[in-house]
C-alpha cells in the first residue's frame, strides 16, 4: 500500500481518521521506507516545536501585559453605547447575525426564524424549526433537525422537510440543503448538531407545495453550496452510508 507524502505528514501530525491511521501503521510495519518517512516528519515536527518552546518560559514583557490589560476598549466604551451582554438573553432579544463568510449574502438572509409561522406540522417538537443559541450560530431543532439526521434525499418522506443535496464541505463536515414550505437553507453537521449557515425565506416563490429538490433552490442557498462543496454531491448510496455513520467523516 502506498501513501502520499501529505498523508504521511498528516499521520505524523495526528490528523488522520482512525481507519487511515491504522492503514499507515500497518504499512509502516511492512515497509521501512514508509516508516522512515513518517519518522522524518515526526522528527521535524518535534524539533521545530522544541526550537521555539523556550519562548513560552520567557517573562512576558510589561508593555504586552499592559496592552492586554488596557487596550482601547475602555475608550471605545466611552464613545459607543455599551454592548453589555447579559448572561442569558431576554427572549425578545434580537439575534446577532454574524457569519462573515456569508457577508455577501447577508442581504438575502431572513432575520428571524420563527416557530409557528413556518406552517410546520411535523411530529415531535415541531414548534421550533431552528433557533439561535446565545450569541451563537443558528442551529436546527425539532422536525428540521430530525429530518436532516434521518431523512434521505433519495427517499422523500411525507414530513415537513424536503432534503436536496448532501455533500462533503471543504472544512470536512457534511452539509445538506433543505426546503420546507416557506424556507430553504443549508445545514452543516457540527458535532451532534446541524449548524445552519444560510436560510432564506422562499415563501414568495412557493405557495406551500413542495418543489422538486434542487429545482428552485434560492440563489443564496446555491451560492452557499458552491462556496463549500468539495467534489460532487453524494449519490444515494453514499448518502445512505454517511447517514448511517451519523454524518461524521470516516474514510
Amino acid at each position, binding site marked *: 500500500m502506498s501513501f502520499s507524502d*501529505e498523508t504521511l505528514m498528516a499521520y505524523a501530525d495526528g490528523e488522520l481518521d482512525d481507519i487511515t491511521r491504522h492503514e499507515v501503521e500497518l504499512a509502516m510495519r511492512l515497509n521501512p521506507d514508509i516508516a522512515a518517512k513518517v519518522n522524518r516528519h515526526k522528527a521535524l515536527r518535534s524539533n521545530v516545536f522544541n*526550537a521555539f518552546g523556550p519562548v513560552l518560559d520567557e517573562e512576558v514583557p510589561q508593555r504586552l*501585559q499592559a*496592552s492586554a490589560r488596557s*487596550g482601547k*476598549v475602555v475608550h*471605545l466604551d466611552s464613545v459607543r453605547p455599551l*454592548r453589555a451582554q447579559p448572561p442569558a438573553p431576554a427572549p425578545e432579544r434580537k439575534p446577532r447575525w454574524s457569519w462573515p463568510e456569508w457577508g455577501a449574502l447577508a442581504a438575502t438572509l431572513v432575520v428571524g426564524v420563527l416557530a409557528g409561522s413556518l406552517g410546520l406540522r411535523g411530529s415531535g417538537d415541531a414548534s421550533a424549526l431552528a433557533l439561535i443559541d446565545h450569541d451563537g450560530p443558528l442551529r436546527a431543532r425539532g422536525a428540521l433537525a430530525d429530518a436532516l439526521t434521518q431523512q434521505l434525499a433519495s427517499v422523500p418522506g411525507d414530513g415537513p422537510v424536503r432534503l436536496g443535496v448532501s455533500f462533503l464541505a471543504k472544512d470536512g463536515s457534511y452539509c445538506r440543503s433543505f426546503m420546507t414550505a416557506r424556507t430553504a437553507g443549508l445545514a452543516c453537521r457540527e458535532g451532534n448538531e446541524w449548524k445552519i449557515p444560510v436560510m432564506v425565506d422562499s415563501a414568495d416563490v412557493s405557495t406551500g407545495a413542495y418543489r422538486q429538490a434542487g429545482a428552485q433552490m434560492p440563489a443564496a442557498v446555491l451560492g452557499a453550496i458552491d462556496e463549500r462543496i468539495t467534489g460532487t454531491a453524494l449519490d444515494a448510496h453514499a448518502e445512505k452510508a454517511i447517514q448511517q455513520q451519523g454524518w461524521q467523516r470516516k474514510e
Partner: protein
Amino acid sequence: MTFNAATIHADIAALLPRLRRFARAITRNREDGDDLVQVAVERALNRSEQWEAGTRLDSWIFRIMKNAWIDEIRSRVRRDQLFAPEEAGEHVGDNFTEAHQQRMAIQKAIGLLSDDHRIVIGLVLVDGMPYKEAAEVLEIPMGTLTSRLARAREALQGLLSDQARTVA
C-alpha cells in the same frame, strides 16, 4: 468595562506566551515579534465586538496577527527595509549546548523560508495548531493548507540538510 470585556482581557493575557512564540517564529526577531503581538492585541481589543462569543478566541487573534504581519511585510517591501534572514537566531547568548545549537539551526532555517511557508510552519509546528484551525486562521481551504504545509516542510527539510552538509 463590561463583563465580556473583562473576560476577553483575561483570556488575551493568558494567550500572550503562545502569541509571542508564534510571532517570534514568523518575524524571526524578538523585538519585531513583540511589536507584532502588541499590534495584534490592540487590534483585537479595538475590534472585540467582532469576536463571536463561543468561537475560538485564539484562532481569531492568530488571524489578526497573521494579517497584521502581512500588512507589515507589504509596507516593508515598499520601504525596502526587509530584514536580512541572517539576523535570525542572532541572540545566541552563552549557551552552546548541542540542544541549543540545534534550536538555533532550526530557527535559522525557518528564517530562510518564504513568508507563506514560515507562517504555516509557525501555526502547525511551532504552535501545534490542528489543521482545521490553522486553515481558519489562514482563511484557506483544508486542501490548500495541507499542500502548503507539505511544501513548507519539504523546503525546511532541504534547508536543514544543506546546513548539515555545510557543517560537516
